[in-house]
């Protein structure tokens, strides 16, 4: 079997906040249909990297490549959908309306709506406003918005943050199922145990640099993490 062509390559991405270098020459590949985990200690630049990839934060240099060609902003919008952490979008609107909006506005998959709602356990609070949800409920509602979006690559920042163990396992299962259907998942996860449960491959980030990339099959991920970060 020959080498797999990546769906997307991130090349030498650098981001500075004034004199502080948040990301420096970060490079790695994303393969189609995989669940890729971005792991690293707190402050290593995971969220900054996702914000740059999601187009909500300008990067100083570096490129997103498909093949050897840099992708344009318009292509990025068609390829990636980014779910930020710690947001409470449209706090006065109900979850039901927010899901309908996501489908209508982003051109999402209406047929999968009921399935996603049911699998993420959202049904009981469909008629509750987004602003009145608990952290875990909101996390699942926002995750549903991302799963309904039509883009083939989903970037989710801390998708398990605020979820209990049972919910974490259920959400991880849903994400894996979507990956098996061909959707690429790129997840930023700070809990190594959660990452090990759901991801196929990992990118390790430390002090704004990518220090490792791979499946780390047969290795203790926590030990790899401690050794590289």
């Amino acid at each position, binding site marked *: 079997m020959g080498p797999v062509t990546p769906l997307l390559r991130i090349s030498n991405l650098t981001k500075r906040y004034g004199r502080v270098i948040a990301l420096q020459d970060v490079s790695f590949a994303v393969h189609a249909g995989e669940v890729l985990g971005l792991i690293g200690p707190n402050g290593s630049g995971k969220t900054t990297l996702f914000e740059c990839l*999601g*187009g*909500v*934060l*300008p990067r100083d240099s570096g490129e997103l490549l498909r093949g050897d060609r840099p992708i344009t*902003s*318009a292509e990025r*919008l*068609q390829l*990636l*959908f*980014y*779910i*930020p952490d*710690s*947001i*409470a*979008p*449209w*706090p*006065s*609107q*109900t979850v039901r*309306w927010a899901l309908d*909006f*996501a489908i*209508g*506005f*982003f*051109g999402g998959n209406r047929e999968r709506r009921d399935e996603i709602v049911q699998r993420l356990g959202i049904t009981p609070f469909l008629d509750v406003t987004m*602003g009145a949800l608990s952290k875990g409920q909101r996390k699942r509602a926002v995750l549903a*918005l991302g799963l309904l*979006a039509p883009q083939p690559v989903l970037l989710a920042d801390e998708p398990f943050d605020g979820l209990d163990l049972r919910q974490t396992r259920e959400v991880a299962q849903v994400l894996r199922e979507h990956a098996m259907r061909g959707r690429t998942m790129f997840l930023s996860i700070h809990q190594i145990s959660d990452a090990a449960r759901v991801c196929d491959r990992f990118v390790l980030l430390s002090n704004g640099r990518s220090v490792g990339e791979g499946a780390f099959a047969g290795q203790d991920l926590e030990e790899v993490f401690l050794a590289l970060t």
Partner: protein
Amino acid sequence: MRSPRSAAAWLLEKEWRELLASRAWWMFLVLIGPLVGISFIDAVRTYAEASGLNGTTAGVGEAFSPLIGIWAPTFSACEIAAAFLLPFVAIRLVAGDKQSGALKLETQHRMSSFQRVLAKAAVLMAGWMIASAAPLIAVALWTWYGGSLHPPEIASVLGGHLLNAALVVALAAAAACVTEHPSTAAIVTLAVTVGTWILNFAAAVHGGLWEVAAGYTPTAMVADFQHGLVRLDVLLMATTFIVALLTVAAAWMRPGVPVRRRVRDTIAAAAVASVAVLVCTVPRASWDLSEDRANSFSRSDEQALRQIDAPLRIEARLAPEDPRRFDLEHRALSKLRRVLPDVDVEYVSATSIGLFEQSNPHYGEITFQLDGRSAVSRATTAEGVLDTIYELAHVAPPAIADGEIFRGHPLAAPPTGAALIFYGVWPAAVVGAALIWRKQA
């Protein structure tokens, strides 16, 4: 099954729902009723008291113009609402997405940031039009009392306040997008509003270029519309400011774009707007929609003045704060500029109040130059100015036909039921509507 809707339609629905979910909006709507009510009730009472004196002769007819006596004060409540309430509603709607994180999701749609800002502005203007129901109720009440109504006047006043509201919305949107926090945006918006008042004050004291600039502030613009005067240059200038401010808002509603580029786009928008503003001062067309032709000479005078082709130069030795200068400008020269194609007015004074120039024998003189001839006068009334010009131009003063004289529409009717409607029914109806919306949503 729902029919598929465009992303723009979804966005408009979202903005509309966000507006209705905003307490600031409902508070604004509750307050505008009593604000309009107090202005309307006071105006009707004053109008009735004056009408009760039976002073309906031509000399005081102007006092019985509903435009000046009723609509200007009643609709002035809209100006207060636009200055002190509307900015908070607009900032809440524009900055809310940034605060909640919704903007990070919405910007992942290919729709341009200008379209996004436009959707918010459109919904806010729809909200303003709903609030305009309060003064329109006053119009209905006035008609019910038996008051005279000249629809073009109402259209002029409504249009002026609509344009003012659009300016406020655009300014608040720009402030909300440029600043990090809504409270900073509120301070910026109010600072600009207060700044225009300072400009008006400076114009009154210093005259000159300050006076020219002050002629285009929202206050001056609304004043023109409230007097039934629609000026093309003001319309174009206001539209330019609105588009420029919305462009700035759109430039800063792009979190993924570097700040340097947003600053560059803002400077570019400001540069284009500056050139456009200069161009906007060129057109001189204007329309007097007032029933009493408050902004125009009589038709006979206008016909006579149109015989004059030569440029007219006027030099008035009057200080900016001299009340005679205000009279001259508003009673004569502003009307003259609307008729004559080439009028050049220059005010000359060494001080701002003119009090210490009285010893100068030439202070107060108004010199008219036309076709190589000149005349000096001290009259600041329309009649005095016209007489001098006719004499200078060798044009026979026209006889004013009796039908041209505005007799006014006195009405000695109390504001029956207005207090109940504006202080009771309106707030109750708004609160009821808010509760129904909350229940349905």
